[in-house]
């Protein structure tokens, strides 16, 4: 199905109104909703746009590259007769493109196997395969506590100045298809990586590029770049172009694709800007009422389908303005994605890397990707136990900051100790440290063994018998 309609079209000379990135053309003839438009300024330069609204007499067009230099009479508008398509092919891996799929690396235009509508189409829920194969990232807080599954969309919720980029590159470097604990890892199935940068700085883009080179991954990465000084309107297209390629690779070429989208907050800002110019009724914080639907049209393009072995796993990164998780961007994202990994400023200040706050983090698909046959039979219980214990640590810390550590129950003192060790030994790891799932689970047992057995109500008695470290108890357990 390569129904490309980008040929001919009809042209109109002169526009009637220009406002921000929006132009209004009257008497344009028959134009379809969502059609692609080429705008040619008086210098003969071409830029691309899209029809936002169409009526009998007028057409509203958003211009991706902005309207600087356009004039009322000197602008020619060519309507191309169909929605936006990009050429996709396997040879796009290893290349760098702008939002619209034009090469930025001085290489030739890639040969197109197929033209894909960048808006994609919703996956029929009956055609999906429920994701169950876990991805071993080598990061304990993810593998042990918030396991990532192939076909999942799991965002990093971060803040300005936090090492979310390092975490993302570490995941890219270390991600392999997981095997049950103790079994040697299968021939490491490599992921193809589609990277979309939206409004990030040159430095951030360079960081990713270097990390891909270092990891030897550059030949299997396709990068779509819309940097901070590129036109914001183009940002609305970047993730869609990237995901169109990812869908092609995953569902036509049977590849496992990891998609990194950064930074979704910039994307939402651009959406707000356009909505604002169009005079739409805003909902929270000026964002349009359809922000949820719009975001879901990006995030829902992850998953697996019955007719292909491939998968799309999404790791969107977003910076929470003012570290506020209730801000509309993280809030609506959290309602669509299958969990979230929260990067925490306090842990970062303490010098802990990766500073992942496990309590507000969550992986919704974890439950079906772990346990016997996937990781290890006790995984679900031990992670729940660590969660419960660490949640209690927070209460104890609050209490001890009021009454002092000395006044605490002895068991609560053990909890405090557990909390510190958890952060130092479990959360904290080197940026190059790649822990196996077994190491992570054993580490979990080492830690909970610092607590008396009676406190461990989330694990079964059999599991305690099998894994609880009795030696530890003699050392720390009894006073």
């Amino acid at each position, binding site marked *: 199905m390569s129904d490309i309609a980008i040929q001919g079209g009809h042209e109109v000379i002169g526009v009637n109104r220009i406002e921000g990135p929006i132009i209004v053309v009257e008497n344009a003839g028959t134009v379809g909703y969502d059609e692609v438009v080429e705008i040619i300024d008086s210098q003969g330069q071409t830029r691309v746009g899209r029809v936002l609204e169409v*009526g*009998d007499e007028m057409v509203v067009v958003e211009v991706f590259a902005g309207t600087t230099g356009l004039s009322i009479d000197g602008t020619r508008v060519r309507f191309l007769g169909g929605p936006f398509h990009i050429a996709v092919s396997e040879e796009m891996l290893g290349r760098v493109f702008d939002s619209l799929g034009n090469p930025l690396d001085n290489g030739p235009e890639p040969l197109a196997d197929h033209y894909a509508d960048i808006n994609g189409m919703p996956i*029929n829920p009956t055609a999906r395969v429920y994701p169950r194969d876990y991805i071993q990232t080598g990061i304990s807080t993810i593998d042990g506590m918030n396991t990532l599954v192939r076909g999942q969309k799991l965002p990093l919720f971060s803040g300005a100045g936090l090492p979310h980029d390092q975490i993302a590159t570490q995941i890219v470097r270390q991600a392999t298809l997981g095997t049950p604990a103790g079994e040697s890892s299968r021939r490491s199935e490599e992921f193809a990586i589609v990277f979309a940068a939206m409004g990030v700085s040159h430095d951030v883009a360079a960081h990713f590029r270097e990390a891909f080179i270092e990891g030897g991954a550059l030949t299997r990465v396709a990068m779509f770049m819309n940097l901070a000084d590129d036109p914001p309107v183009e940002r609305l297209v970047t993730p869609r172009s990237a995901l169109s390629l990812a869908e092609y690779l995953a569902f036509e070429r049977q590849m496992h694709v990891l998609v990194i989208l950064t930074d979704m907050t910039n994307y939402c800002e651009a959406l707000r800007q356009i909505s604002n110019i169009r005079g739409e009724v805003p909902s929270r914080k000026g964002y349009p009422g359809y922000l949820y639907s719009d975001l*879901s049209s990006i995030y829902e393009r992850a998953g697996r389908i019955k007719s292909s072995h491939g998968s799309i796993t999404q790791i969107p990164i977003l910076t929470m303005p003012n570290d506020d998780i209730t801000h509309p961007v993280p*809030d609506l994202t959290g309602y669509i994605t*299958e969990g979230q990994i929260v990067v925490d400023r306090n842990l970062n200040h303490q010098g802990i890397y990766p500073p992942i706050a496990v*309590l507000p983090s969550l992986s919704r698909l974890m439950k079906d990707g772990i346990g016997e046959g996937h990781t290890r039979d006790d995984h679900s219980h031990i992670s729940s136990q660590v969660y*419960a214990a660490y949640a209690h640590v927070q209460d104890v810390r609050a209490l001890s900051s*009021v009454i002092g550590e000395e006044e605490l129950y002895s068991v609560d003192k053990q909890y405090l100790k557990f909390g510190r060790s958890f952060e130092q030994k479990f959360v904290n790891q080197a940026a190059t440290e790649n822990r196996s799932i077994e190491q992570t689970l054993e580490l979990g047992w080492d830690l909970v063994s610092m607590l008396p057995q009676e406190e461990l109500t989330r694990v*079964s008695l059999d599991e305690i018998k099998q894994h609880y470290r009795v030696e530890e108890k003699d050392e720390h357990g009894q006073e």
Partner: protein
Amino acid sequence: MEQIGKITWISGPVVRARGSRQVNMLDLVEVGEEHLVGEIIGLEGDTITIQVYEETSRMRPGAPVFTTGLPLSVELGPGLLRSIFDGVQRPLPAIEMRQGAFIRRGVQIPPLDREDRWTFTPRLEAGVDVKGGDILGTVQETAALEHRIMVPPNLEGKLTWIAPEKKFTIEEPIARVKKDHREQELSMLQHWPVRQPRPYRSRGGNAEPLITGQRVMDTFFPLAKGGAAAIPGGFGSGKTVAQHSIAKWADAQVIVYIGCGERGNEMTEVLQEFPHLIDPRSDRPLMERTVLIANTSNMPVAAREASIYTGITIAEYYRDMGYHVALMADSTSRWAEALREISGRLEEMPAEEGYPAYLAARLAEFYERAGAVETLNGKNGSISVIGAVSPAGGDFSEPVTQHTKRFIRTFWALDKSLASARHYPSVNWLDSYSEYLEDVANWWHAQVGQNWFEMRKQAMEILTEENRLSQIVKLVGPDVLPDEQRLVLETARLLREGFLQQSAYDAVDAFSTVQKQIRMLGLILQFHQKAGRIIKLGAPISVIHNLPVVNDLIRMKTAAPNDDLSKLDTIQNEINVQIEQLEAEYL
């Protein structure tokens, strides 16, 4: 199909056309050469405003608009159960067969299969007078449910012919009804407009609880059959898992599950899991009593708006047969957002947070379609509605949560801090409430145990007291509390970890019968009372805390399967023995 006009304006799912002044509000239309389905939502002079249930890209002004002359309706008849539809009742498996993994637009497939043959067993004989709701005959739709073919609500007359017991497709005639010399042929397939509630004879009270198998819901905050409940909670607080658990274990005969603007994978999970899970009551796969409506977040937003009505109309149809139906809508907030999005495109004046001013009215219309009724044929049926609410930022003061609270009577407030400690279901016992307590008390007392109301009250007192005491503990530490009060903290811990927490993924714990629930609660309260006596004798709280039976009480939920509660007898015995020993020590 008649052409009524031409398109003049397009913005996303909202399309305007100019043409006929003879069309009706809410009539179904088909738009453009591709015949995309839509609904008339506004008329002004000869301008017709339409919301389209499919993606409108590439549509052009000047394209034709057709009408069916009928309002948006659902097809009702055998074959609904085990189905999965989109928001306007298109069958998703058939769409997959025809189009592959992705949903393209312009597909027209009837919701119910026209080829399937069902064995119709007549219940009436020709010659009798019939009226709306009367049961003409039955079809065994699934092993779990007998489908009752009824006379459509607005029809009455003399039954002139009825088919013998035989297999029919849903379109073949199975009866004829004559009134005033006009004879009408009936088949097993009927239609009903989704925005119009189906009629019933009278509304009844809510005397029986809807048992969900979830202890915190059944014992603490019960929902009555025919009642309405809301589950509000921020993301990650476990709304969907709670809804799934209810869909799995609720003692309703039919489940309608609406995935309204939520994740695709969640619907896939239900689709893959329900055919394998066995309903503990009918011993049949859960799918045999389930109708799924899936309009995921990336499917067209106007169809999301319709999905709620599609679901509740199907629920009403089964209610009218005399069944207890439970309907889950996950999530009503996404539905409200669809209203907001369409309202915005229509440039209506917004009220709070951009929502249209008619939000409350629409919510009320929806929740009021819940209820226990006497049906037109004199049977008792009910619809219990459980709506998930996804408040922005987890803040319950936002408009959808606040308006919903006015129309529901059971409020299961999910709590993010409980969820992050992995306390599930994260129903906060201090913020939740049920107004059905008194209504269902008689049922509990007659069916389960004489003192349910009293026990529940005691347990709630302990939990409320714990909250008050923990405020003090936070300020000055636990040591200042007298041992009686520290016992309250200890018992509250037993209630929280041993009773309220329930694992949806544990084979034994996922579902508790009411008998098990009341026994468990009874044991904890007994322990509390007996331990209180020992403390009065001067025993310190630490000896109580260290009793081995404390651990048994916390683990009893997984140790005692529903069909063998003997483990609870053992624990009962242990409480007696261990406390007696202590008593002997301190007396």
